[in-house]
């Protein structure tokens, strides 16, 4: 009776090793990346933008709301605290909770503001935008 020896056994072992490596790629790669503190995942970030970018040059009439968009790409649910200030004086503030990958529109009232630049930022970060407020 023939036996599987030498070259024959390696013919089975090699494909078997390949199959195991391919099928177990995900856990193996995770362990390896964790071991070396490496990652190919996107860098987490949040962003703030004027809903209508042309407002940056044309400005918004004071008293009218400023519409901005907040995006969460941090990889997890996050609660954002935003504030609108003018020369350090608080005009408006609020809070938004966003799932990862979602964008929300925030309507910021500018009542109480004067003509000049309104700064809208996310508290605790250097993410902010500015918009000129014009005379009504």
């Amino acid at each position, binding site marked *: 009776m023939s036996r599987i020896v030498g070259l024959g056994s390696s013919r089975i072992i090699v494909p078997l090793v390949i199959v195991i490596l391919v*099928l177990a790629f995900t856990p193996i790669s995770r362990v390896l990346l964790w071991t070396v503190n490496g990652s190919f995942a996107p860098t987490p970030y949040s962003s703030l933008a004027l809903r209508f970018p*042309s407002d940056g040059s044309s400005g918004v009439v004071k008293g009218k709301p400023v519409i901005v968009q907040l995006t969460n790409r941090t990889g997890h649910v996050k609660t954002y605290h935003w504030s609108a200030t003018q020369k350090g004086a608080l005009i408006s503030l609020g809070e938004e909770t966003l799932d990862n990958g979602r964008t929300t529109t925030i309507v910021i009232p500018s009542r109480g503001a004067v003509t000049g630049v309104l700064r809208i930022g996310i508290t605790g970060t250097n993410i902010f*935008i500015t918009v000129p407020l014009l005379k009504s």
Partner: protein
Amino acid sequence: MRTFRTGAVARGTYLLSLTARHFRGRRPRVSQTEIWLAVAVVSSVALAVVHSPLVPLPGVITLLLVPGATVMSILKTRSASTAARVVLAVCLSLMVIMIVGGVASLLGPHLGIAHPLNPWPESVIWFIIAVVVLVIGDVNHRDPVSWIFEGLRTTHVVGAMASGLLVVFSILGAAQLNHSGNNLLAVFATTLDVVVLLAGIVGGLRRTSQWHLNSLLYSASLALLVSTSLRGAHLYGWDVQHEFAVASATLRAGVWVVPANHDAYASMLSLTVLPAILHSLVKLRLLAFFQLFVPAILALLPLAVFSTVRGVPRWITSGRTTPRPGVALAVVVALIVSGVAFASELTSITRQAMALTMMAALVMVLFDRTMLKRSAQIVIGLLLVAISFTHYSTSYLTAAILFFAWPVSLMWSRGLLGTPREKIDRHRREMRSRNIINGTLVGVALIAAFGWNLGITRNNALTNPISAFTAKGLGFTSSTLTKIISPNQFEQLFVRELKITDGWIVPVPNSSSVHLVAAPYLKSPGMVPSLNAWWDELSYLSIEGLWVLLGVALLYGLFRLGRRRSYEYSSDLVGLAAAGLVLGGILRFSGTFAAYYDPNRAAIVTAILLGAPLTLFLDDIVSFLYEVGNFHRDRVRRVLLGAGTLVVAVLIIGVTGLGDLFFGGEAPGSVTARDVQAEEFTVSTPELATAVWLRNNVKSPNIVQSDFLGQVILLSEPGSYGLIPEIVPPDVDRGAYIYLSTLNLAGDFTQVQIPNGPYQIAYRSTIGFFNRNFDIVYSTGATRVYH
């Protein structure tokens, strides 16, 4: 009707007989290709079920091998070497995929299929092709998979898997560098690649060496390439961003059309049809196409050259044994792997990466004595056609090389280039029977290059180089280097330039009062900075010495081997080597052409053509050292072989950036996260997000301004807006959107280059100017858009 029915019956009978033949005897006769296809389908499904990121792998490997193997089996041609067969199969497969996609795109809309590159049409097309492949294999009695893998041993597979560890280390090194900025593993992986290649050279110096140099060379090359291509959160480099945009547009359209704007990139099937089919058919993501697929193809380039120079060339009838594998490997490592273009440029110029691999395969077929002359000529013709729609410049260059090589080859074969009168008859007789390059191939090369690029797609690839050539000539006296000048000098030049080129810009009042302050280019300090000048000198001498060696090798071949012993040299080799040296020289020293075709990339072309003469020359020297009988022979041999290996070591240590890390300098992004190159070419997720926001929110006729390097990511996500790649305050339009990258904001570093001018400066970002005069309309913290 009768004819149709008869045909159908005949086909049915044929299919029945096919089945009957399969099941004749005790057990069914299943071909290797059938097994391969079945395993590919089953494993793809299994990987999809477990949500593995490797889902595209079986499909990609199948598409890369089986179509080309089928072409080779139809032509009844193959090399004796498995590595050469694989290289050729891959190149021919690329050709088949591009032709299938191109034809589908041109015919599909006329047949009611508006998006022929979408998954369903492609699945149907490739199912039909798979059936045709199986039928052809059965009819010809040549199974495609067996045709290329015959003779492959388990030890080869084990060797390849072991060498694959080099790639694993490189990938992990890039992941660590991307995530934490720590370059420890990246440096280790690169050092390992260098050590393994040098060990291969030493280990292969004996003709009887059993080292698995093919696997080793491929894996080390691929490891070096992915250490660059995987850097950053998006694509690394310049051209590749535009290539991504073109591929992305084709993918969205689901069809390739001849670009109406004559864009050269969009005219290439390699950047449009190829990634679209791979995405539709096997779910290969576009990013993976550029970061992994193309490096995997490009790593075949050194393998193709190694296969070329390792064997006894086709024309040699007697008097020569196979070159030492170590010498052949040394030539490939020195000329190709240590080429600046190969290690750090070609991964970001993917169209050229694929085309140069095809060109290397073409030369491999030309020199391969185990492939019959007529079949070789057909394969070369096919590769010439494939190159034409893979990369325009390589296509023109290949046509020019053959056009130049052919008359030189003719003159040589007729004995007009110095053959002694008494030997001329024999010389002519021997040359005539062995040359491959002929008028037909030159014609095919010219028709393919000009037909596709100027006839069919009418792309604009030649427009600028021809205008520059008409205006300036070859410009051998003009400098090809970009000069770095002081901000003061720049401001004076800039005011003059501004009036000519950007007179329409409406600047912010008093913007000319903002003066630029020079910013230092980020460099690695090095562990032994005192030896930096010495290292630079040594690297320079090694690179220049290599060029001298190529010239000497050619002269040795012409006058020592070829003139008197025609059986040791060939007219094709003379023609190609001379063409390579002349064209390489023109592209290297012409200031005009250097602006359009990087001399480093031209050096790779020269290396592909001159690898064989150099190997013949060096192998003769090594043989002489082994055979010479004198008192000091062992010592002399060791010293000379050690010196040769040292030169290769200097070249590869220099190009991988290990030299910069050790002696100080601007190390490439593959081994550092801090130096200027890494800062310039790596793209972060917030930068990509900003580019996408600009594309979606800023429309024509608005303009976007960024600094010279900031535009890199904007090329990847182009919008309808106009782009001005500089933000020097007097040249910033009041109505523009201004993009500031992470390097501008956090690095306080901005770069500007005068358009089409040789001047470049780096200065501290003028953030205060933008804060005073513009509002911020978009912000990620790491990036900003002002308006």
